[in-house]
């Protein structure tokens, strides 16, 4: 589930963000408490607390004193706009580089993208 190859708090944050982006977690929905999350996934509670704190700092979650943590209503938009910023460097640039390396013409690439976006099956 979580591995030892990168900090676990980052993996937890990634997973909660993914749930927000797919709509599995909705705005104002309560998330599991730190202790429940730690027990469920067998992770040190301090590690989980660090992940949740980061999500609060990033505006993805907010705290209600004495009740728990909730998803910020604007979290999906916050995350989408953050991902938009890195989309071209993380996704498009490597794809173009690979296409050029194996001899796929840029025109074919553009063609494919246009068809995909229009929902046309080729």
């Amino acid at each position: 589930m979580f591995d030892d190859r990168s900090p676990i708090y980052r993996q937890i944050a990634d997973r909660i963000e993914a749930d927000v982006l797919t709509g599995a977690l909705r705005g104002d929905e309560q998330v599991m408490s730190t202790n429940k999350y730690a027990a469920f996934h067998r992770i040190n509670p301090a590690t989980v607390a660090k992940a949740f704190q980061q999500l609060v700092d990033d505006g993805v979650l907010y705290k209600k004193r004495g009740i728990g943590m909730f998803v910020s209503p604007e979290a999906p938009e916050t995350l989408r706009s953050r991902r938009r910023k890195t989309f071209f460097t993380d996704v498009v640039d490597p794809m173009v580089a690979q296409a050029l390396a194996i001899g796929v013409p840029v025109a074919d690439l553009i063609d494919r993208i246009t068809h995909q976006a229009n929902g046309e099956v080729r």
Partner: protein
Amino acid sequence: MTTIIEVDRLSLRYNEVTALDDVSFTLTGGKIYGLLGRNGSGKTSLLSVLAGYRKESGGTVRVGGRPVFDNAEVTSQVCLVRGTGDAASSGIKVADVLTFASYLRESWDSTYAAELVEMFSLPLNKNVGALSHGRRSALGIIIGLASRTPLTMFDESYLGLDAPSRYKFYDALLAEAMSQPRTMIISTHLIEEVSALFEEVLILDEGRLVLHDEAETLRAAGSAVTGDAESVDRFVAGLRVLGEKRLGRTKSAMVYGELDEDRRAEARAAGLDLGPLALQDLFVHLTEPTGDRS
């Protein structure tokens, strides 16, 4: 309850053998600590000194600010559970072992002990000597958890436990750490299975402390740099290289130390592949006897 542990220049010698050599660290307490090391690295020696079972040959060891050896005030606050429990109790019934344990610790919680006995399906009327390896380990775990001592140490306590029982142990340990925060030290070499439970990690090798850091820091600290041998050599110059592998012109170097965004960009520009290094691999490379350490 938090119990600070201060170890300063600790050494432990058995006749000619040096088991611990110039070990220094401070644990602020209230956390789950992982003590990692290969067989014979000094884990049990270190835990024995912290529990007051052995007197240090040099240096100082303080638990809660006070020396440990021959100090009942401190040792009554400490519980060390060794592998499969102490062999001396083999002719005694399980129920009696638990009763004796309760006499030894004023913090003992007998209700909780009974819950754990049920959880691990331990037969109270059996002699300890007649128990399987795994059940003896479970008995030790129950004693460690139910003693609720401010400093509780489990020395390879999972030995002989089957996987479902080990997971019960981890679950109970975490539940305890959350409901009754205290200082717990777990020695192990089953790193992949338990490391997510640790907040801090200490690695011993040949009686020396080679590393002490937050587990999360260590998960980000190792990288495998792979690519053209010359470019790899140029990139890792000045870094702590834990090990190297070579296949033709391709080389892979395991380095220790977090690489910032500038360094990562530099690696990309040089056509090098940067991969993460799992905590387990970091441990293996840090404690390899013939490893390339620079």
